[in-house]
């Protein structure tokens, strides 16, 4: 029983590796499905805006409010814009956006492809001489990889706006002073590392959603499982990637 589980784990790992490898091969091979990539970018990016806006705004306000008591003990509330900008740009923005996207986008990709699998729509594409992997997987993974960094920039901005409102109300700091402090605190390395890890988060969300959907079985029950495990697996991998990116960025910061 135990050894069977270990076997299944490694078999799953091999399948996942082959799936990712296939993506990197298919992405370069024509024909390219540009229209579908644009459509998916719209779905993933534009349709996530309301949720991302609300979450980013709340994160900005809450984080500012929670940080104030600690800083005020040292009479350092004027450092709030710096603290918030560093926290948001380096970690909170990418992480919050990626987790929200894993829930919204990852589950939607997993469920959509899973339901296409069980209703034979993927087979229908295949028999009409269309490569379903290219049309369904490559397009969604590319769209997710492109859109998550853009959403992260947007979340950063909205979170900083939320933070500014809180700081403005409590510390009477003007907009220009707030943003001057914000941009003074963040470096090129912060922005670059944030964008690079957002690309990785986006790729992870897309590929995990597609993999789970593409390999779903057992009818409609399998579709639910695919959507659910796409979210859980993507979130788990995002946290691991966050940890790795932290180590790498710290290494470069110390150079």
């Amino acid at each position, binding site marked *: 029983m135990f050894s069977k589980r270990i076997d299944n784990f490694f078999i799953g790992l091999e399948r996942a590796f082959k799936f990712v490898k296939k993506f990197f091969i298919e992405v370069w091979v024509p024909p390219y499905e540009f229209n579908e990539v644009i459509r998916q970018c719209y779905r993933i990016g534009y349709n996530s805006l309301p949720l991302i806006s609300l979450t980013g705004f709340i994160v900005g306000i809450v984080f500012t409010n929670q940080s104030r008591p600690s800083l005020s003990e040292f009479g350092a509330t004027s450092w709030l814009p710096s603290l918030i900008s560093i926290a948001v740009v380096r970690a909170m923005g990418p992480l919050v956006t990626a987790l929200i996207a894993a829930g919204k986008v990852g589950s939607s990709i997993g469920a959509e492809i899973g339901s*296409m699998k069980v*209703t034979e729509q993927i087979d*229908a*594409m295949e*028999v*009409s*001489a*269309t490569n379903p992997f290219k049309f369904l997987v490559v397009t969604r993974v590319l769209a997710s990889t492109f859109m998550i960094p853009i959403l992260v920039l947007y979340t950063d901005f909205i979170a900083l706006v939320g933070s500014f409102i809180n700081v403005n109300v409590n510390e009477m700091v003007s907009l220009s002073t707030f943003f001057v402090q914000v941009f003074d605190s963040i470096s090129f390395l912060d922005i670059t590392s944030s964008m690079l890890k957002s690309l990785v988060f986006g790729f992870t969300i897309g590929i995990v959603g597609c993999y789970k959907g593409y390999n779903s079985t057992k009818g409609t029950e399998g579709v639910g499982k695919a959507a659910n495990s796409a979210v859980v697996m993507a979130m788990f991998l995002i946290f691991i990637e966050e940890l790795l990116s932290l180590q790498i960025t710290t290494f470069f910061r110390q150079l």
Partner: protein
Amino acid sequence: MRDTVIEIRELSKSFGDMDVLKNVDLDLFSGENLVVLGKSGSGKSVLIKIMVGLLTQDSGTAIVLGREVSKLNPKELNQLRLKIGFSFQASALYDSMTVRENLEFPLVRNVKNLSKVEKDKLVEEVLDSVGLLTTINQMPSELSGGQRKRIGIARTLILKPDIMLYDEPTAGLDPITCMDINNLINQVNNEYKTTSIIITHDLTCAKVTGDRMAVLLDGKFDKTGKFEEIFEDATDGRVKSFYDYNFIKQ
């Protein structure tokens, strides 16, 4: 002597411990409509999925239009697939696309240098031939089961295939809609001059659409022949009881 379009020899396929097809032999001749009958789970759909390369056999050969399917590379397989229309049991229409987009999908990817006017004309022509031109801008979720089946057939017809494979075309439909689908299958064969395999366990469908029947029992074809020959001369109790020929005659 008619040409052999599909030639199946000693084809076997298993899933785990279950032997679904056991050394199956079958010939499909140009212009004929072959009905493959059998109980649910008897391997009928597996057989036609092997013919289009959706599944691979464990042993034996499946030669379609002179090409052995399992030995084709992806490009050759796609070229062969363009000559085969596959109508799925659950229609398999793309949920996120309108009827028009569903029909355009195989067209834009496989026919080069097609103008918008030509594309629209082809889509409208094929939709008209299945009697559903008015649904052109509807989503699949807005269609009835029978309409979905018809659109599914229309989507396969748009590339003008030589062979049509129907997987349970009347499953889950009321008797009147079943009759409409049966008539559509005959109409398609006459208009598009296709050779067909119709997978079903619906005897009315078999009788109306088929020139020849083949009964799949325990992974093998028990007998092939005309509808009356199969059931009047049936010595196998399973054929007699399962298909209940007398009920159909009444």
